[in-house]
């Protein structure tokens, strides 16, 4: 019996179809189940002789076909009528007649693939190892000989009786087939190769995961680069045409757009705020709710950062500039100041358009109409102030009253210059500290400087401060902050006289 362990079965060789047909019938009748005939081509009648039952394969084919058909129908319905409904050539979104060809093809495809693979699976193939293949004569099973092999695995297998049965059937040769004593475990090199391959498969996945959850400095990979980058100019793209690589050409000094020129001539009031050198006093368009809304919106976008949401001059940028102790920073005006409110509309418009003092012009950034809208809104904003902005905006900013009428013409001129030369932006006349100290009571007061010295604010001091503000820095003030607008000696004289008049 130790032999049978290593035995695979008994093999008998036949030469003709007739022989194998009759032999097969005999083996069948002997009651064997684990046996088979091996022939170089399909032999008709052998199924009957062996008692092979009809395969269930067609059922798999049928099911696969029905699956393919339903999937094809569902797929097209879902894709073209549900998930991305799309009209084309006047056909309904779900066009059954047009779906038939694909349904049909999928039916066939599913059936064919299923038939093919199920057949191999049912046949237990591929199975490259076979004890029979080790028998030399068995090579002719695919050429011109017919074989019957009864396997030891058969419950009624008995080497002697099987051999005698096969002898009876007229076999030309009978041979015991060994079951090779080989390990079923794959060799080490194969396992290693498999491990390496398996590890290799993870690498791309890790790269993808990394790309997904990290940031990159480099632009994306364009798998299909061709039409992502077309040779056409898009806004603000560089151009190889010019040396500096800019497609948008900077304006030459002193130029302004033809269009503006033209329009300005046509309606100078609307476009410049001035007619014949005189500011417009009214907004050159009906002031509607829409205009005010628009003005408010534009104000919030363009002005609020510096002038504050309430126009008090206390915007975030200003605060930031202060916190950075920015030298030469001129604080944004409090737009509620009377002198601003009193300006003609045209002047306000001009300030927005062309800038004033340290405020740049916004002509390029805000359209003409929007600038007028802002002017209109300003009026409303200032009106709110009068109506009790305190409740609305909290701490009321200081508002200068008209002040006394100066008898001295020099002082009067100084008071005028105080406004026009923008001193007013930082220095109040009522003792409030704005950016810098108030002019009220400045003259004659004692100044303490950062270098420890002191001085009385007399005319000489004032003259020096206006000419060279950084010569002496009063304690608590930042050097370099004060900006001197172009000023003549007479004007300086008038200003000093004005400040001296505020002596307390």
């Amino acid at each position, binding site marked *: 019996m130790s032999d049978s362990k290593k035995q695979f079965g008994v093999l008998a060789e036949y030469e003709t179809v007739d022989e194998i047909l009759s032999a097969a019938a005999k083996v069948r009748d002997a009651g064997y189940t684990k046996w088979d005939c091996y022939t170089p081509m399909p032999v008709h009648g052998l199924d009957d002789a062996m008692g092979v039952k009809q395969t269930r394969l067609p059922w798999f084919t049928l099911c696969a076909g029905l699956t393919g058909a339903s999937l094809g129908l569902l797929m097209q319905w879902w894709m073209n009528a549900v998930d991305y409904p799309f009209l084309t050539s006047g056909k309904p979104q779900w066009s059954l007649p047009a779906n038939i060809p694909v349904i049909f093809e999928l039916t066939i495809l599913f059936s064919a693939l299923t038939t093919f693979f199920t057949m191999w699976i049912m046949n237990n193939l591929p199975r490259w190892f076979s004890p029979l293949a*080790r028998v030399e004569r068995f090579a002719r099973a695919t050429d011109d000989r017919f074989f019957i092999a009864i396997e030891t695995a058969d419950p009624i297998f008995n080497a002697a009786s099987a051999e005698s049965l096969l002898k009876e059937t007229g076999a030309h040769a009978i041979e015991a087939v060994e079951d090779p004593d080989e390990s079923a475990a794959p060799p080490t090199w194969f396992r290693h190769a498999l491990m390496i391959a398996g590890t290799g498969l993870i690498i791309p996945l890790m790269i993808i995961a990394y790309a997904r959850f990290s940031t990159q400095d480099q632009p994306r990979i364009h798998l299909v680069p061709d039409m992502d980058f077309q040779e056409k100019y898009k806004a603000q793209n560089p151009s190889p045409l010019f040396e500096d690589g800019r497609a948008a050409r900077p304006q030459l000094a002193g130029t302004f757009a033809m269009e503006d020129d033209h329009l300005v001539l046509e309606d100078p009031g609307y476009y410049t705020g001035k007619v014949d050198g005189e500011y417009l006093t009214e907004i050159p368009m009906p002031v509607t709710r829409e205009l005010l809304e628009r003005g408010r919106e534009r104000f919030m976008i363009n002005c609020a950062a510096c002038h504050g949401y309430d126009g008090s001059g206390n915007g975030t940028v200003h605060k930031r500039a202060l916190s950075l102790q920015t030298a030469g*920073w001129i604080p944004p005006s409090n737009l509620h100041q009377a002198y601003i409110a009193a300006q003609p509309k045209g002047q306000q418009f001009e300030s927005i358009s062309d800038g004033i003092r340290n405020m740049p012009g916004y002509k390029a950034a805000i359209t003409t109409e929007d600038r007028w809208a802002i002017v209109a809104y300003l009026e409303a904003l200032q009106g709110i102030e009068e109506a009790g902005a305190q409740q609305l905006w909290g701490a009321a900013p200081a508002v200068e009253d008209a002040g006394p009428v100066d008898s001295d013409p020099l002082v009067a001129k100084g008071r005028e210059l105080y406004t026009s030369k923008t001193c007013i932006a930082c220095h109040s006349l009522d003792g409030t500290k704005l950016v810098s100290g108030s002019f009220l009571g400045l003259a004659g007061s004692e100044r303490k400087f950062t270098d420890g010295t002191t001085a009385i604010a007399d005319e000489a001091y004032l003259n020096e401060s206006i000419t060279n503000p950084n010569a002496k820095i009063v304690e608590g003030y930042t050097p370099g902050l004060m900006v001197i607008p172009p000023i003549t000696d007479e004007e300086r004289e008038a200003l000093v006289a004005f400040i001296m008049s505020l002596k307390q």
Partner: protein
Amino acid sequence: MSLYQFPRWTDALRPLLGLTALGAPVYLVLLFYYGASPKTLAVGYEPTQPVPFSHAVHAGELGIDCRYCHNTVDKAAHAAIPPIATCLNCHGDGEIGKGRIHLDSEALEPLREAARGGEPLEWVRVHDLADYAYFNHAAHVNKGVSCVECHGRVDQMEVVRQVEPLSMGWCLDCHRDPAPRLRPVEEITNLGWVPEGGRSREEVGRELMEKYNVHPKQDCSTCHR
């Protein structure tokens, strides 16, 4: 017999073969699907800009409205990168511009250099649609689609980063169901906006769709023209 025979262990290959036959297509499809997805390729793009402009400071801390700089966004298809002049409103030196903030900053040197007519600043485009895709900022912004829907919380970004895939499928998501992405146009640049009174965005969006007459198209020619 000397001829080659398949050893017994080749039988062990059979499950492996089956696994490969079933697994390989799945693996390859997944690899392609995730590997080539814009979520992998495009999201997370964070280029270094020539000037370390911080949106977090300007738009976030200072609360400067997006439109202060990108002033064409509600008027044109293209949301303009501001000209240097806009920067100089605050960051000039008196000669090239009026503002004086960070007058001495090294980082702003390229800006001043460019303003003086030197090398132009080459801002690196972060959100770059393919050239065959047409996108109109004004059309979206004026109908209540906020900047944040496509660009994310730029007001919290030190360096601007692409956070959305900007793929066609992603565009279509919104074109097919715009309601949850809409807000009142007044709040368009308020990136942290949430509906008042605990209402859902869906609910508010439905009303706004009605109000703004929002009917996004899905034809090819909507974007490819």
